[in-house]
């Protein structure tokens, strides 16, 4: 199947070349970081995690794309999704791959990263996150590959693959739960210290992952001879709608607890994010943008007519992605560190090389995604699906 990625249209070739150019630029910035240290980023002693860890957290959510097609397909016997499971799984592979890269570029001593394996530490949540993320990556590679090659040969995939598929469903829930536990178990970080964190991660994952999958499905239909299907996209739209409602609902629960209790430690990060605190308000326009897009998304997803219309569904999905990206890819991490343990505020904003390295990681992820989708769609076109 691999041979299919080496042939393609001129547009495919240009896209690959474009991604390679971006990856090269990001890699050059990473070399600078490797040489000089994380000093080239905007991170500091008070906001000691920044854009990288935030992107990692967001992309763990995107990886949920797989389970939201696999679960209805295998647990509810919803056969229509069998047509697109491989697209969900391949998106998950690219997302988890980016997650691991974002952790890699964030550590201060990348050459020592294997110490996590040499000194396994079960009381550290990062240890478990490494296990669930790598496990999920491996599961999706094996399942996606076996299912696709069986489909190409026109035979059912081996029975042991089905076992792996059933394992992959709870496993997908574990990656969001464990990633939430990184934040939710820390004393002295009131914005993160909330029992609902894992539930919030799951709900935002189950809307942002399938939302991106819908956009990709529409793109695949436009660019190739394979149509992921109208019904499939409609069902995914329903999933995005429910998950986004839950996501916003859970966030409102956080606001209630913080503001009805009036506990300053719990209110201050939220005030910092949405109103600014002591003259520090760089995130305020971003957070309100997120809120507005969340509102647009909800409106378009709840009204049946706009949810079923693919054009308005596309706008809804883009809005979901923008809203959840700002919430998790900016607000969650920076808000958690602000104010610092002394009640002071230190500003953080990613620097140019930091953003460039992040874009490079995204480009590498999209390269993996493109190649995997090229392979999947070539097979689909070949068998005339």
């Amino acid at each position: 199947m691999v041979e299919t990625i080496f042939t393609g249209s001129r547009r495919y070739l240009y896209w690959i070349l474009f991604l390679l150019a971006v990856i090269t630029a990001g890699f050059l910035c990473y070399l600078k970081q490797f040489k000089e240290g994380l000093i080239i980023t905007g991170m500091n002693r008070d906001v000691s995690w920044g854009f990288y860890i935030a992107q990692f957290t967001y992309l763990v959510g995107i990886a949920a794309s797989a389970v939201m097609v696999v679960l209805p397909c295998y647990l509810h016997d919803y056969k229509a999704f069998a047509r697109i499971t491989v697209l969900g799984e391949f998106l998950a592979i690219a997302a988890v791959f980016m997650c691991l890269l974002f952790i890699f570029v964030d550590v201060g001593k990348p050459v020592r990263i294997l110490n996590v394996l040499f000194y396994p530490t079960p009381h550290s949540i990062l240890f478990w996150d490494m296990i669930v993320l790598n496990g999920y990556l491996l599961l999706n590679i094996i399942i996606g590959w076996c299912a696709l090659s069986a489909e190409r040969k026109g035979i059912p995939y081996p029975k042991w693959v089905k076992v792996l598929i059933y394992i992959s469903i709870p496993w997908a829930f574990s990656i969001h739960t464990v990633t939430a536990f990184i934040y939710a178990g820390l004393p002295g970080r009131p914005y993160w210290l909330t029992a609902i964190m894992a539930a919030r991660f799951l709900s935002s994952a189950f809307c942002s992952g399938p939302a991106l999958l819908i956009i990709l499905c529409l793109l695949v239909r436009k660019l190739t001879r394979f149509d992921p299907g109208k019904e499939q996209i409609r069902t995914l739209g329903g999933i995005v709608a429910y998950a986004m409602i839950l996501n916003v609902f859970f966030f409102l629960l956080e606001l209630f607890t913080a503001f009805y209790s009036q506990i300053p430690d719990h209110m201050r990060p939220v005030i910092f994010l949405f109103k600014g605190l002591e003259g520090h308000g760089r995130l305020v326009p971003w957070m309100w943008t997120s809120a507005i897009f969340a509102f647009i998304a909800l409106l378009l997803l709840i009204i049946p007519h706009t949810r079923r219309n693919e054009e308005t569904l596309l706008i809804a999905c883009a809005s979901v992605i923008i809203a959840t990206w700002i919430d998790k890819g900016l607000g969650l991490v920076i808000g958690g560190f602000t104010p610092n343990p002394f009640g002071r505020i230190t500003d953080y904003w990613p620097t140019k090389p930091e953003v460039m390295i992040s874009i490079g990681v995204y480009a590498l992820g999209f390269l993996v995604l493109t190649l995997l989708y090229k392979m999947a769609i070539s097979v689909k076109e070949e068998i005339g699906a």
Partner: protein
Amino acid sequence: MITRRKFLKILGTSAIFGIGGKITLELIAPGQLEAQPLSKDKKTQWAIAIDMKKVDDDLLEKCIEACHRYHNVPNIPGPKGLKWIWKEDFEHAFPEQENIYVNEEIEKMHFPLLCNHCDNPPCCRVCPTRATFKREDGIVMMDWHRCIGCRFCMAACPYGSRSFNWGDPRRVMEDPELKRLNPDFPTNRRFPTRTKGVVEKCILCYERIDKGEVPICVETANKIKEGSFIFGNILNPESEIRKILRKRFALRRKPELGTGPNVFYLI
């Protein structure tokens, strides 16, 4: 005969059990697999009580300088700097007090802040490589050769006690601006400088304690004002620190978080 397939099977399973075995051991007997800490004494938890009636800004400055010079902590201004011990006013040292109507004397005070060498340190709990760990005498230690620089410990510490080497600390020997602030870096050639990409913090002068000496901040403070820093074993009821804690009222930073901080501020 062992076929290639069989050989790979054995190799694979033994690899799985090799890693799994280590994890199992860790769960049954945490920390037993690693090298034992230097001190065998399980009845020790070093602690410091600071008599706020005896310390002033000048004394604190001297303590800070002594510590940072002893441990080669470079002076790098701004939010990317490093500090093992520093001073802070009441409002920010004890933000949870939310006290608007503060005693004037206390309001003007500066409190020396450092690692609390907690009984139940969150930093050690979260570290994925056990590069930061609790010694049997209670010191929360750092292994700068194992730390991968993930900074999970910095997120976990509710006291802001941890610093990260965002760049190479030795750049202060070359950078003209920083060289002016650190003319004779490294100030202690018997103590290592760190490298870029690792976390560091107060290690309660373990190397001095192992020689029977007291931490450098305690020694410096007491030279200036006898009895300003009281250092001792908090688990020994007869120790000087326990005696003074029985007599005087002391504050600890954020004890409500269950970390069990071991730095006491005598008010």
